[in-house]
């Protein structure tokens, strides 16, 4: 259990804490990690992968010192080890061009604008992780309490 990791990236530690707090209800099922820069995030996911664990979801801010969030997500998107990893961009400062790049080149699955609605974020995270679990063939029965019902039911209707 707890082989699937959720990684939150934000250079402002209070924002980072707040994101992690919003996801606290998932703690029993997923390992939730926070890093304050893109570089830290990349070395963390590298380490997670070498431990044989999975990176289910990365939630990243955009504007950070060093590598930007969109660049980070683009790197992850192009890394075959993380081809199923879900990606959320959570930012208040991305301009039009950044957003286009995030969608076209980093293949993000969801975009949240700061300040965000905690419940909405949690629901999106659940839905994306459910898709991740079903897509990668991990035994979903162990995660039943936190899975997105609608996504699960639609999958089982077709695949059970």
């Amino acid at each position, binding site marked *: *259990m707890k082989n699937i990791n959720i990684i939150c990236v934000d250079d402002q530690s209070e924002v980072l804490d707040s994101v992690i707090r919003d996801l606290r209800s998932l703690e029993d099922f997923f390992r939730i990690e926070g890093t304050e820069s893109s570089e830290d995030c990349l070395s963390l996911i590298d380490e997670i992968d070498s431990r044989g664990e999975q990176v289910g979801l990365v939630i990243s801010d955009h504007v950070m010192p060093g590598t930007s969030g969109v660049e980070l997500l683009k790197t992850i998107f192009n890394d075959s080890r993380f081809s199923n990893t879900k990606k959320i961009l959570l930012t208040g400062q991305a301009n039009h061009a950044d957003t286009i790049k995030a969608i076209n080149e980093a293949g993000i699955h969801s975009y949240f604008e700061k300040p965000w609605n905690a419940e909405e974020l949690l629901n999106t995270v659940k839905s994306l992780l459910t898709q991740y679990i079903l897509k990668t063939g991990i035994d979903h029965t162990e995660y*039943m309490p936190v899975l997105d*019902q*609608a996504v*699960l*039911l639609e999958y*089982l*209707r077709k695949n*059970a």
Partner: protein
Amino acid sequence: MQKTNWIKIFFIVLLSALTLFIPFDSFGVHINPIEQRVIALFVLAALSWIFEPFPIWSTSVLVIVLMIFTVSDKAPAMLLLDDGGSKFGNLLSYKALMATFADPTIMLFLGGFFLAAAATKFQLDFNLARVLLRPFGKKPHFVLLGLMLVTAIFSMFMSNTATAAMMLAILAPVLAIFDKEDKGRIAFALAIPIGANIGGIGTPIGTPPNAIVVKALAEMHVPISFAKWMFFAVPCMLVMIVIAWFILLKLFPISKKSMELKIENRFLKTPSAFIVYITFATTVILWMLGDVLGLDSNTIAMIPIAVFSITRVISKDDLNKMSWDVLWLVAGGFALGLGIQKTGLASHLLEAIPFASWPSLMVLVGASFIGVFMSTFMSNTASASLLAPIIAALGVSMGAGIDSLGGVQGLLIAVALSCSLAMSLPISTPPNALAYSTGFVRTKDMAKMGVLVGIVGLLIVFAMMSFLGNIGYFSKSKDVLQVSPVVTEENVKEGIKDLAAPTPLIQIIEVEKKEKTLEIRLEVPLDMPADEVLKIPVNADSKSLDSESITEPKIDAEPEKTEAVPEVAPAKPAPAKAPEAAPASPAPAKAPEAAPAKPAPAKAPEVAPAKPAPAN
């Protein structure tokens, strides 16, 4: 893999290995080394299915592979060091073990999978649900009944899990707007798994435990067709649903006055969609009319597979996404059954335990309760796989004693149905787990309801089996063996035992001494080829046989109104061994298995035309 899993695996392997050293001989049970290995594999399968150190289908694969390497004719020579004689045991055919993956019953299921996959892909499930639910109106308690019935009907042809998922998807938005204090929410959330679980009993393809039993019956030459199954199972299912509906309304009264299910889909009108509608309907109709048309249910299942493949209704991707794990799980169950029956283990164990003297009702009730109990905590399919081979042997050993309860067929079918009646915990079945995860149901509610439905269901099953037994629903045909008088009844009995071991379904019902011959009336399974009946080796002492008097051992035609009686020319007996009544003409390979209601000629080509078998 996690540490706890390794510990589980260690103990499972240890315990099953220890079974290899149990001195059965000292308990008066005489089994040979091969049979002892089968027992160890059975223990291994049972423990792995209970404790699940790996997925249940993997256990099946493991069982098949281990059987091939330890008890088959392709086992490594070092494992078969013994003399290879009869003392060492009967080796299983490795081909038969591998063939479990594509057994006709598996193909029947695959046909069902194709139908279900096509139906969901083209929204047929939602559309049918919309149409079928409409007559139930907006009054919540009728909507509840409608949901249960529709769920059950779908579950007869789709997997229980897929059906429950689909119906819960329809129901969830409605339940979300129910008043939080309304107990009706519980009733609705429970209605879906109950409908899905009970619906599974309706057809042979409704749920995998049915497949285990259908296969076991086919192995014993008493196959049951699709229609013959539905004929008793659907009424059982409907009665259970209606009673469960009453109980639900009683326990969880609905306060809401009106409700509406919103299903937005429309019937697709593309050519592919019409192919799905027509093929679906045709297949189901053929399944129901198979007996009348002389078509085999397993063969009919190949039609949707072919049609959907060539019309691209089912793509390569869809094919790869089918639940092959379920089929492999079932295959493992078949292999276990094969091992227990074909090595002779079943008959050896039964010699040691006097089941035949047990009251038949006790055996039926006991077996069904064990079925419910086991499948409450473990996979229904695994429970059926473990129980069916044992119960089959037991039923056979009870002989005519259990005929009033439907014979061995009734007993095995009751086991399959009881495995579907376990629904008192979220872990009992996947539909239960889904309903529980909606958050509207507490374990306590589910347990209360599940136990009640289980008990009511079992009572209905007992009543049905007793009814079917009394009307002779699973009757056998009667053949007459006419042999020379020096061949005694005992000789023939021995011979029958040898031939039919480990499933002596042939029974002597009457012996009549005539001037020159001894007429022995036999009851044989409907589809047993006549040449097999003829091969009954009559183990008479050769010295006592006067060659004159044994020249005419034959199976004679005894025209009886409704019974299939093959007629064969007398065969020349082998001089050394007593009258081995082999067919006179070149023996064909086993005659094709005929559907029960099919006219008897298919029984064995070389026999003279026989009377049509009873159509019952």
